């Protein structure tokens, strides 16, 4: 019977479909879905080590009375609020200049500016730590040029330690974002720029009124992924500050605090899981923002 045969084919097709995706789904279920639900469950428990008791929303209440958590939250927010706009602007400017084929050595410049993306987060953090020591190469250069009169305490003063973290992330990720803009710019019709040039529109105005609006979707996308990345900041601060987030918790991020609560001291699994959900909520909000903005476009 024809109908029976199609039914069999359909089943065969369906079975194959499931077989191809099964290994991934299984792994995702065990190593992603289960842990994220388990974290939520744990966040209702308090106690140290394996001795835990149900605490309801006790952990959430504890958050607002925990100065270290509030500091880590403030630091994390400060990092992305200050760093992401600086980096995105820099990346845009670099991409706009690098899109000019008439300049010489463009290939070299592109590769050079992209190179930091290849460095491992640990390796570059360690390099930055050595470069920014009190008598280090950066302070020597600043003193020699006369920009400062006394060496800056990059690793010892709370304000400058934050600046150092921001400088470091900007170094590592500007080229990464630039590549996205460069790829998008190459899809823009060059004649728009030619026309604007003939009309006497200056370069800065071409950048502000043509380049930036044309790249709006990519800018939004990279802003969101950079922000999500910065919310989860860990490797850099851990390796710049020997895992302490110092000086005086000035560079302590939420991820580092969770790590310390779980693996440095007597573990507070429940409370640490609650803090991890603060990150989940922040990331989820940003992702929905991205989703809605993307939907508006289409």
């Amino acid at each position, binding site marked *: 019977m024809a109908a029976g045969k199609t039914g069999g084919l359909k089943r065969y097709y369906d079975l194959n479909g499931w077989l*191809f995706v099964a290994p991934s789904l299984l*792994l995702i279920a065990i190593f992603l879905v289960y842990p994220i639900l388990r974290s939520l469950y744990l966040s209702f428990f308090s106690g140290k080590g394996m001795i835990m008791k149900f605490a309801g929303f006790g952990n959430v209440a504890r958050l607002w009375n925990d100065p270290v958590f509030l500091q880590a939250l403030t630091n994390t927010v400060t990092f992305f609020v200050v760093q992401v706009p600086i980096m995105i602007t820099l990346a845009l400017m670099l991409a706009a*200049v690098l899109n000019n084929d008439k300049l010489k050595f463009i290939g070299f410049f592109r590769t050079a500016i992209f190179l930091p993306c*290849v*460095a491992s*987060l640990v390796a570059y953090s360690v390099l930055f730590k050595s470069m920014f020591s009190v008598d280090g190469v950066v302070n020597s250069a600043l003193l020699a040029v006369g920009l400062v009169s006394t060496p800056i305490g990059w690793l010892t003063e709370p304000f400058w330690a934050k600046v150092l973290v921001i400088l470091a992330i900007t170094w590592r990720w500007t080229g990464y974002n630039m590549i*996205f803009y460069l790829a998008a710019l190459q899809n823009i019709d060059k004649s728009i720029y030619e026309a604007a040039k003939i009309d006497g529109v200056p370069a800065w105005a071409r950048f502000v009124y043509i380049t930036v609006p044309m790249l709006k979707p990519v800018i939004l996308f990279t802003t969101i992924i950079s922000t999500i990345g910065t919310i989860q900041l860990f490797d850099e601060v851990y390796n710049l500050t020997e895992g302490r987030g110092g000086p005086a918790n000035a560079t302590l991020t939420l991820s580092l605090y969770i790590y310390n609560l779980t693996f440095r001291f007597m573990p507070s699994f429940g409370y640490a899981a609650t803090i*991890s959900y603060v990150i989940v909520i922040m990331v989820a909000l940003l992702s929905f923002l991205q989703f809605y903005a993307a939907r508006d476009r289409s």
Partner: protein
Amino acid sequence: MNAPRFFSTALQYVFLATAAFLSIFPFIWMVISSTNTSIDIISGRTGIGEAFATNVANFFTQVDVPLVFWNSTKVAVLATLLTIVVSSLAGYGFEMFRSKARDRIYALVLLTLMVPFAALMIPLFMMMAKSGLINTHIAIMLPTIASAFIIFYFRQSTKAFQTELRDAAKVDGLKEWQIFLYIYVPVMRSTYAAAFVIVFMTNWNNYLWPLIVLQSNETKTITLVVSSLASAYYPDYGVVMIGTILATLPTLLVFFVMQRQFVQGMLGSVK
């Protein structure tokens, strides 16, 4: 060339040259510093020194280099291969065998992209501790294999795969897994290469999860070794520099050999 145009061009060169210099400087610093003593490094010496041989010798006495390199290579290569096999199967499956149920599940898979690792690490650690997998390389690899990014990347790339090829193979009597293995994989090799580069880099540089799971010197990867050398109370930066060079060299090499695939993979996997 008129004067404003000349200044504008000059300004662009100055901007690019400054950015390029700042981007490359830490790499140059790493190489120069590997020839200097720790004291010279933290006092900002920019000249080439004579301590290179001493630093290398000290690094080799403090670190079991072949073992650490073997650990890193084993974990990165195996995890990368597994990720690519599993994810390309899924990307192919989701695109070639479309159904309502699978499309819904795919949307859920994409949703896992926004799960931060911080919210996974505690349950994952407890899971590994219960299974007796703490301090093993399997524990490092398992959670990294299923990657929504790479599944997405393969699904997007599969859209360009010609279904005529598949139909012809079907007529020839090939089974679905044979079509995948003998037709899809060879046709998509540039997609595979790009995915390999990007996943290898991620695995080689992986830090937080190995930091939690690997607790003995016998299992540590190069990233962990560099980190622990540098977080000593008085780190020997000469030795640390040798470590950073060894940690960076493989990814630099992969980057220069496969720059095109690298950029393609980076743009593709997050688009």
